């Protein structure tokens, strides 16, 4: 492997380019018309334009990306996260073109991308799953399955992610209509109208495990990440270790997950996402076959470079040794959005000055002068603090957020600061309802 095409944009494109530079690999960046002016275009060995601005014409345009790979002489493709990262057809096309796909083999992308298949696979390996149905084929089957699971029940699309197309149903009378609506949304958003049912868990915690496999039975885990602080089913803050949970129990779950990844022969990086009920029951949510946005949290506590590990594993190198973890790491995602309404905020970044502070890493794909368009997600930057205690990590993030100068778009910094100062959060009482509770409290304030 000598030259890596990065089929992505923003912070993750910059992150992969940095890893390539440190490994002595050449890197090829791509950019849509909206991303002209991004700082990483000059950090890469070469940068190629993608005509247009729409995701479908640019970062989702598999044939154009493969043509650039050929033209630039790249021999590997890193998909980043989002866009084509979990698209099995794209991974297969990369391999068919004789290039290395930096990620798991395409069959894993296909199997884990099908939520019903992934759920059944982990259940068959003895990992806990919540009560749920198979793929729904008739309203009678849906009613029977929902009665077995118990109401309220969650209707979920088998493709896609990010909570899109999910619906909660409280009683049998609403089920048929909800299933039909979920099918329509799923078909439109993911091109697959398949839906299934799962037990609805109110106010769960979201805990995920960072896993690595060598495709030959070898596997290890790099601990958990707590990702319950969310808005609109999207993560806002992640940390490790997860507060207020039994360390030995978490270690046992992580070992079980790594054991399954090894037994399956899964290769490269993967993240097993789980939900935890307030009563302490755990259940499989999904397996992500890519680097996560929040990978920096794990890097901070283990000292590993997960992107370099991805590249090494894709090149056939062995797994790294197991790592102890040190201290506490916490990440917040700075979004261009209104902190009150949570609506996205577009515009020109007149000022953009990330802080430089000890113990605080900032990952961003932006610089001043760029314009944020509606075409891509609203993440401006990730701030990752590492310290010997959770309290110190929180303090570093607070200082970092207050020192981060942004003008031209609204940011969610006030909301992140409110979270970091919330009494419940400080006590480690986190669940997916936390942000709504904090927003309700803030709204009441005179």
């Amino acid at each position, binding site marked *: 492997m000598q030259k890596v095409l990065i089929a992505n944009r923003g912070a993750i494109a910059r992150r992969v380019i940095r890893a390539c530079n440190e490994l002595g690999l050449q890197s090829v960046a791509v950019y849509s018309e909206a991303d002209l002016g991004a700082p990483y275009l000059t950090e890469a060995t070469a940068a190629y334009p993608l005509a247009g601005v729409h995701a479908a014409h640019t970062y989702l345009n598999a044939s154009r990306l493969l043509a650039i790979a050929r033209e630039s002489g790249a021999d590997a493709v890193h998909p980043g996260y989002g866009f084509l990262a979990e698209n099995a057809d794209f991974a297969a096309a990369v391999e068919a073109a004789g290039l290395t796909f930096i990620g798991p083999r395409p069959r894993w992308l296909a199997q884990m991308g099908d939520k019903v298949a992934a759920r059944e696979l982990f259940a068959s390996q003895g990992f806990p799953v919540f009560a749920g149905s198979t793929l729904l084929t008739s309203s009678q089957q849906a009613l029977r399955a929902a009665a077995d699971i118990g109401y309220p029940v969650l209707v979920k699309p088998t493709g896609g992610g990010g909570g899109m197309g999910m619906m909660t149903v409280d009683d049998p009378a609403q089920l048929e209509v909800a299933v039909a609506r979920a099918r329509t949304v799923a078909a439109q958003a993911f091109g697959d109208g398949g839906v299934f049912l799962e037990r609805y868990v109110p106010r769960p915690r979201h805990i995920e495990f960072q896993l690595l496999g060598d495709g030959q039975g070898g596997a290890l885990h790099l601990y958990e990440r707590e990702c319950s602080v969310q808005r*609109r089913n999207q993560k806002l803050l992640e940390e490790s270790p997860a507060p207020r949970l039994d360390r030995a129990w978490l270690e046992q779950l992580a070992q079980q997950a790594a054991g399954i990844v090894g037994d399956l022969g899964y290769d490269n990086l993967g993240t097993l996402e789980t939900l935890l009920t307030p009563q302490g029951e755990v259940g499989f949510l999904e397996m992500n076959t890519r680097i996560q946005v929040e990978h920096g949290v794990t890097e901070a506590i283990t000292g590993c470079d997960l992107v370099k590990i991805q590249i090494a594993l894709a090149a056939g190198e062995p797994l790294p040794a197991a790592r102890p973890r040190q201290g506490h790491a916490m990440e917040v995602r700075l979004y261009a959005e209104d902190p009150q309404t949570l609506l996205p*905020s577009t515009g020109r970044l007149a000022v953009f000055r990330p802080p430089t502070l000890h113990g605080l890493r900032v990952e961003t794909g932006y610089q001043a002068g760029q314009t944020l368009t*509606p075409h*891509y*997600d*609203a993440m401006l930057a990730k701030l990752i603090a590492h310290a010997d205690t959770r309290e110190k990590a929180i303090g570093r993030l607070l200082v970092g957020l207050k020192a981060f100068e942004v003008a031209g778009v609204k940011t969610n910094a006030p909301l992140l600061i409110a979270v970091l100062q919330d009494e419940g959060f400080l006590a480690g009482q986190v669940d997916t309802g936390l942000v709504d509770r904090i927003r309700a409290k803030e709204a009441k304030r005179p």
Partner: protein
Amino acid sequence: MIRHDLESEVTGTVWKILLAPGSAVAAGEVIMILESMKMEIPVESPMDGTVAEILVAENEQVEEDQCLAVVTA
């Protein structure tokens, strides 16, 4: 007659139009869904009434404050 112009709160794209002109609409009912920065933004009717006009089409790009639909009661 009360006439209410529904304006876009964001710059984005019209993802899906759920109600046609002439449809009865309840307060809080979603008339269309916009998409911006990978987020779905529902446009809801502020009152019970009728969708008098839909001023945009699916996949059309819209600007902040652009009028999207008119509801009358």
